[in-house]
């Protein structure tokens, strides 16, 4: 698809940038101030997108198209300038204009803050989906929270992670439109007064609530080609002057300020994923605030063209991105029943037909459960509604499976115990017409394990939609050299149809193409080496194998297994058991949740192992260990194109899908991985010869857990390689100045029974690494495999994923 935006000339772009320098920034053009250039360019792009938003809206109105609303507590959108330039078809013009003016466009792009409005894959997926919906001309809109502070900035101090606030809004955000005209009032707290209505029927009244003001900020989302511009609406919490004025008038200045601060606190910060524990009231309020603002807005828009709710499910699809927005079930019911007076049965039909639920995790601790007492305090009416939904649901279950009390307890929305808990995943399941996992394996695990009772009841509701990534950001923008080679070779249709990459298959045997492919990888590795050198003052050999493990730090993702392998190789070399044949650079990046002690210790371990290995002259630079701080979307865009080997080594059955794995594949890295998440489908697509799969399968691990026949101590006793690696952690080899700090690893493996199965997978992993090393010594063969990986990555486009959602769940056609 060629860009459909009317071509802009360099002189027009210059005039637009100069205009904004003068009128938006009050600066005299021309300028070489990168910050001013970024802002004035961004404003110029926003002008065009604003017009396109209006045109797109007119089109949607005329065609009465069904709208898709994607609710997510996280949108990891990354920097927008490059993406917007590409999708508007203005990148080349802008680069030429800047080059002629002696300005490096990359320096200008570096001025943009990278909004950290997400923890990782789930938030980035949401951002990729927005790009794909706009590109596919789907009326799809994101709804999220306008966090004042994104995920913390990571700094490293003596190997320890330190968290610093990410005040991404401290500077002007040139992309967003603040829409105070569409602010809304959200009630919260209070109590239920049990009353009777005029007809003597029970009429619960929600009284004594406070309110929060929801203020929308819209960020345009332009699809490739520029035909469609949708938007992402992020709500900030406020206490507007209108609503505070009375308190000020009373002269109670402090109370007024306190109220304002309390309201604004609600959207102050994004919670790091692994610290969201039940009972964190502010997080619950955030989840409620998002769904309440969103549903009010959706209904307001719907009622502009409709008098009742009969067409609501035909006009509106709401996708809940994970369990976090599942209060949408209760809030939509409350709105329909209380505020719009629909009979319960009708409201329930509308709710179920409209909502759909994506599950993103099988980790029990990540499936939210909120104390009923907390819900009663924060949203008492919603708790009432949840109880009523549960009562009606359990009645049906009891009628269908008479006498099965265990089943009732398992499926109930309420977990009985010392204190009652509301199972939010069950609420989402019961209130949706569709539930999907995010890879084939994950969906099967949901069906057979986590949600097996629900699957038995409603098999037709369960579908799989394997995750995807947008090639516009992760290849076109992130890896311009490779994108250029591909376009020169097979044309540019891959930009909107990634399956076209199959056209590269024949070139995996052509020397000229492979040489160019290899040169590009080498150039990307040089770029990354420079970043490492500038950031860490560490010299990297760009000809070494770049072995990369970048993602959130979590035990199940097994950064520790990677480190064990590195230590194993190190010990082999220093003890003379191995002469290195391939120089290797191990690159890590990722953040640990501030309250997750083990994850933070893993970061410290990576640094200490790196410090010892990198300085050990016996190694002669055969091994280097690098930890790049403050992992972000923009850092990932620089690391991934340089990867030779992608580490996707989670404990099988734990990673729902992964999307980093897909980004590496698309950029010509080979994957070493377990049969987990989307790795399974990557194996199917790439072919077994082009991916390095090792380790226990999910069902084998499940079986070992059930039979309780895994004894880590036996592995320690029987395998000297394992023993000496664990002993190295224990005997202070890597912490001479902080004795004993890594002894926890040994205890975690032995006394805590290695809950993430590092030891059974260790041997298969190091064997696979030996094979990888051997294969890397044959660059022609390696490059062939890399090209095949690129050629066969078409399935993993978010365009395919969004099309699947559209066909299988939202059931809508793109407007003509």
């Amino acid at each position: 698809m060629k860009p459909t935006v009317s071509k802009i000339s360099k002189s027009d772009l210059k005039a637009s940038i100069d205009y904004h320098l003068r009128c938006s920034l009050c600066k005299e053009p021309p300028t070489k101030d990168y910050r001013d250039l970024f802002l004035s360019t961004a404003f110029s792009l926003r002008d065009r997108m604003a017009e396109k938003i209006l045109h797109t809206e007119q089109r949607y109105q005329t065609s009465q198209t069904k709208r898709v609303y994607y609710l997510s507590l996280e949108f990891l959108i990354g920097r927008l300038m490059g993406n917007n330039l590409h999708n508007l078809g203005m990148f080349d013009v802008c680069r030429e204009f800047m080059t002629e003016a002696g300005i490096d466009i990359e320096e200008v792009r570096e001025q943009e803050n990278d909004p950290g409005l997400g923890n990782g894959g789930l938030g980035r997926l949401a951002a990729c989906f927005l790009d794909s919906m706009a590109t596919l001309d789907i009326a799809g809109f994101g709804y999220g929270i306008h966090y004042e502070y994104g995920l913390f900035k990571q700094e490293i101090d003596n190997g320890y992670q330190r968290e610093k606030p990410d005040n991404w809004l401290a500077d002007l955000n040139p992309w967003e439109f603040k829409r105070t005209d569409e602010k809304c009032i959200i009630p919260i707290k209070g109590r239920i007064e049990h009353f009777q209505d005029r007809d003597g029927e029970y009429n619960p009244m929600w009284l004594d609530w406070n309110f929060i003001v929801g203020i929308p900020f819209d960020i345009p989302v332009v699809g490739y080609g520029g035909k469609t511009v949708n938007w992402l609406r992020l709500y900030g919490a406020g206490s507007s002057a209108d609503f505070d004025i009375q308190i000020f008038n009373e002269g109670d200045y402090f109370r007024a300020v306190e109220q304002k601060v309390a309201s604004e606190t609600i959207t102050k910060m994004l919670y790091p994923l692994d610290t969201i524990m039940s009972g964190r009231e502010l997080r619950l309020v955030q989840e409620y605030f998002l769904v309440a603002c969103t549903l009010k807005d959706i209904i307001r828009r719907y009622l502009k063209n409709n008098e009742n709710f009969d067409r609501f499910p035909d006009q509106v699809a709401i996708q809940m991105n994970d369990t976090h927005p599942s209060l949408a079930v209760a809030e939509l019911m409350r709105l329909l029943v209380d505020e719009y007076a629909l009979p319960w049965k009708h409201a329930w039909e509308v709710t179920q037909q409209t909502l759909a639920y994506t599950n993103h995790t099988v980790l029990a601790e990540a499936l939210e459960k909120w104390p009923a007492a907390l819900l009663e305090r924060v949203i008492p009416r919603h708790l009432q509604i949840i109880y009523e939904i549960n009562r009606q649901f359990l009645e049906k279950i009891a009628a269908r499976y008479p006498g099965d009390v265990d089943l009732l307890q398992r499926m109930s929305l309420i977990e009985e115990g010392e204190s009652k808990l509301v199972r939010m995943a069950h609420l989402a399941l019961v209130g949706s017409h569709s539930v999907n996992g995010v890879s084939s394996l994950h969906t099967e695990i949901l069906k057979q394990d986590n949600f097996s009772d629900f699957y038995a009841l409603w098999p037709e509701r369960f579908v799989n939609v394997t995750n995807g990534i947008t090639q516009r950001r992760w290849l076109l923008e992130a890896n311009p050299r490779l994108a250029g080679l591909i376009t020169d070779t097979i044309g540019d249709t891959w930009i909107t149809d990634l399956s076209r990459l199959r056209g590269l298959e024949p070139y995996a045997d052509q020397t000229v193409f492979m040489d160019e492919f290899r040169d590009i990888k080498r150039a990307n590795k040089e770029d990354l080496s420079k970043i490492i050198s500038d950031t860490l003052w560490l010299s990297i050999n760009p000809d070494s194998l770049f072995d990369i493990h970048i993602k959130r730090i979590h035990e199940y993702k097994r950064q520790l297994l990677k480190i064990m392998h590195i230590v194993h190789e190190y010990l082999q070399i220093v003890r003379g058991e191995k002469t290195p044949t391939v120089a290797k650079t191990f690159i890590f990046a990722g953040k640990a949740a501030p309250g997750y002690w083990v994850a933070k210790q893993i970061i410290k371990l990576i640094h200490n192992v790196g410090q010892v290995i990198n300085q050990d002259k016996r190694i002669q630079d055969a091994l280097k260990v690098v930890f790049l701080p403050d992992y972000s979307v923009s850092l990932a865009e620089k690391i991934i194109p340089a990867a030779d080997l992608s580490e996707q080594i989670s404990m099988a059955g734990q990673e729902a899908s992964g999307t980093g794995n897909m980004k590496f594949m698309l950029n010509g890295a080979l994957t070493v991985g377990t049969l987990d998440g989307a790795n399974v489908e990557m194996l199917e697509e790439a072919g077994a010869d082009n991916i390095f799969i090792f380790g226990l399968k999910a069902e084998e691990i499940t079986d070992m857990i059930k039979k309780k026949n895994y004894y880590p101590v036996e592995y320690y006793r029987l395998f000297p390689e394992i023993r000496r690696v664990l002993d190295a952690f224990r005997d202070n080899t890597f912490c001479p100045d902080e004795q004993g700090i890594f002894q926890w690893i040994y205890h975690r493996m032995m006394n805590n029974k290695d809950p993430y199965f590092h030891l059974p997978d260790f041997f298969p992993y190091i064997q696979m690494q030996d094979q990888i090393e051997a294969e890397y010594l044959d660059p022609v063969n390696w490059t062939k495999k890399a090209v095949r990986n690129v050629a066969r990555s078409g399935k993993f486009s978010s365009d395919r994923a969004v099309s699947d959602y559209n066909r299988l769940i939202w059931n809508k056609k793109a407007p003509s």
Partner: protein
Amino acid sequence: MQLKHNNVKDVLIVRPLEKRIDASTAAEFKQNMNEWIDSGNRRIVLNLSEVDFIDSSGLGAIISGFKKIGNEGNIVICVVKESVMSLFRLTRMNRVFDIYTSENEALEALSGKA
């Protein structure tokens, strides 16, 4: 708080002249309503034509008056702006009170009741 009130036969018409009934005015509003009820008013029309916003303490004051009268009379509401009506729907108070579009309609309805 400015409250206009007058009687038409045995019906008391109360019209708040404020744009908001909130924490700063609700207590006074509630006290006035109590006094009128205590002094024998049993049929009350609450005309909200001037009011743009009522917070939960203001809504609570209306409910309090309604409860105080109980079965001995009635409070009806009239001329409610959409911004206030949405708050009535939120609390489900619209299902408890009779709500009329004009003061005359409210008077007529209330006068017709024994």
